[in-house]
């Protein structure tokens, strides 16, 4: 058939049809964050975002991933609610097509994502929630990775710290009544047996408890000479207020749930007596990576003038390294295919990170990049988490 000049010219325009796909969609790789961006732990979501953002900026400045594609962060607020977290993760994977979903502070939310990530074959990267079973689940293949503390290892660490620094012989634990608290209850029992320590007792408290004097009194009567505290800021603050009310001057060693909010404001004058675990501190002498990250944070967030202003620092530090490791895995996989990225996590070469130098950080036997040798112990001075001595 002979084309008219108009038809001929028109046909030249046909290839332009395929350029109707937005240029940005072709040139970017999305990673998702499902975290508490509101509620008691809102600061934790913001601190994770900052760590990821600084890492993403650095990665994009060096050319991005997969041969020039920009890494882009898409966030969703789980409101510390597992059901909302699941919906958010699904939406991020199925609609936004994120390559990896990063998680937030809440263990119950992360636990609820194990099945979702397996079903949708997309890797999860935890940067805060420390529930042991998040990565130590019975899924094969296991899509859950983490650059963060692990409850089991923290529990042993807290007991050892109470024993070494406070000469505690009968620690008692106060645990928030949720899956995270349960995870630590088991971890503390196991660690106490391994360390030959007798626990005075393990008490639970609810998130809406105005007063925890009853539970603390039972521990005191059982001879507790230190308190192992597990809970997020708002609820742990009530424990400290109850100790103040009881006038019980007992050392308190805490998991890091208290670092995700305004503990100094909510917990009363005893807030500074609590020693808690961290994976990183921006105080003191920094490595070149540390100095670089602080400089980038100051540039991006002008209210940050120094380490003092880096609120909830562990989220920022974990998220920074985790994002870098995820980018390495994406590049190694050569695609945004979830199964390939998962396999690629096992093949990450050495990486000089912020928290440490990672050498083969992930394997099928351990999908947790950090060990208890990487932990440090801090206390609050104002809202700054400063290493003890």
């Amino acid at each position: 058939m002979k084309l008219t000049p108009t038809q001929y010219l028109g046909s030249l325009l046909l290839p332009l049809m395929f350029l109707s796909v937005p240029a940005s969609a072709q040139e970017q790789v999305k990673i998702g964050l499902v975290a508490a961006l509101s509620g008691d732990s809102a600061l934790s979501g913001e601190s994770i975002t900052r760590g990821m953002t600084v890492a993403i900026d650095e990665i994009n400045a060096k050319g991005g991933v997969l041969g020039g594609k920009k890494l882009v962060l898409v966030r969703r607020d789980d409101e510390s609610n597992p059901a909302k977290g699941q919906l958010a993760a699904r939406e991020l994977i199925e609609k936004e097509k994120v390559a990896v979903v990063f998680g937030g502070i809440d263990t119950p939310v992360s636990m609820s994502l194990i099945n979702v990530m397996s079903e949708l074959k997309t890797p999860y990267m935890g940067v805060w929630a420390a529930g042991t079973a998040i990565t130590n689940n019975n899924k094969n293949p296991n899509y859950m990775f983490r650059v963060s503390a692990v409850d089991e290892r923290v529990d042993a660490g807290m007991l050892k710290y109470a024993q070494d620094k406070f000469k505690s012989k009968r620690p008692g634990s106060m645990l928030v009544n949720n899956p995270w608290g349960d995870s630590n209850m088991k971890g503390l029992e196991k660690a106490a047996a391994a360390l030959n320590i007798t626990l005075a007792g393990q008490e639970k408290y609810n998130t809406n408890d105005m007063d925890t004097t009853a539970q603390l009194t039972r521990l005191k009567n059982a001879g507790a000479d230190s308190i192992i505290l597990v809970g997020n800021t708002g609820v742990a603050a009530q424990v400290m207020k109850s100790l103040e009310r009881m006038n019980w001057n007992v050392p308190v060693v805490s998991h890091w749930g208290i670092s995700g909010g305004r503990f100094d404001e909510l917990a009363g004058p005893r807030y500074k007596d609590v020693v808690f675990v961290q994976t990183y501190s921006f105080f003191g002498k920094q490595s070149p990576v540390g100095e670089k990250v602080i400089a980038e944070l100051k540039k991006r967030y002008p209210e940050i003038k120094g380490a003092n202003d880096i609120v909830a620092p562990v989220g920022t530090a974990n998220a920074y390294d985790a994002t870098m490791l995820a980018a390495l895995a994406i590049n190694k996989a050569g695609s945004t295919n979830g199964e390939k990225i998962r396999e690629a996590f096992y093949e990450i070469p050495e990486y000089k990170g912020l928290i440490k130098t990672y050498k083969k950080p992930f394997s099928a036997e351990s999908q947790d990049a950090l060990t208890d040798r990487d932990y440090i112990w801090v206390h609050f001075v104002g809202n700054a988490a400063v290493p003890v001595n």
Partner: protein
Amino acid sequence: MISLDVLIAGLATGSIYGLLALGYHITFVVSNTVNFSLGATLMFGAVLFYELHTRIGLDIFLAVPLVLLMSGLLGIIVERFFVRPFCQNNSVSWLLSTIAFGIILENIVRFTFGQEPRSVPMPSIAEPIRIFNAGIYPIEFIIPAVGISVALILWLLSKKTIVGRALLAAAQNRDAAILQGINVKKLIILAYVVSTALAGLAGMLIAPKLNVSAGMGTLIGLKAFAAAIIGGILSAPGCLIAGIGYGVFESIVAAQLPSAFREILGFGLLIFILIFKPNGLFGKKGVYKV
């Protein structure tokens, strides 16, 4: 053996429930409606008090009346837009609409005040007083004292003032009150203003102890309503006594058993009492015209 601090803490919480329960009572007796957003109004009072007194630094003698005024204004808004339109059409949709108002208010506060809980430091919560080895905060004495005083003042006003007697008259027989020339419409507005002012007061009282957050009022509002039902919503003394009793009961349960039992036994008690006393412990049978 119940320790003194458990008892006092229970009296304090119970007084908060009692104040809100009185709020439910006042609007119900005058208009047969209940303002289910009282829990959110308590939160509003607490948040406003935090903003005016703690954050801006306004003197407490200015902040308190301002909070009471604003809380009272909320009552006018609720009555005019969320209750009256439905009552005028003989509909019970005011039930859902006041719940909706509470949810709207909570989310407006979430959006403006923010999501994080904030503390309201006050001298009354700074250091506990030691009595027989128990640590009791001064605020835990202040709350029941204020609660009972306010209830007594309201009772006196209802007996000794014309407006108070008009309210009682409207409560007993609305049609007769209208025939006597009593402006029942204005009385209903007044009832709503008093109920929300009581909730705002309760919010200010509990704020130093609880920490202030957008979601702080929901469960309190629900428990106060349970107390109003237990006490008999038609009886003012019943509502107050039941509120205080509920708080003490909760405190004792939490001291003896894991705190999860607090809600289980508290609401379980509500159902148990209603089985044997359907109008509540002090309630009177409502009159239904057929």
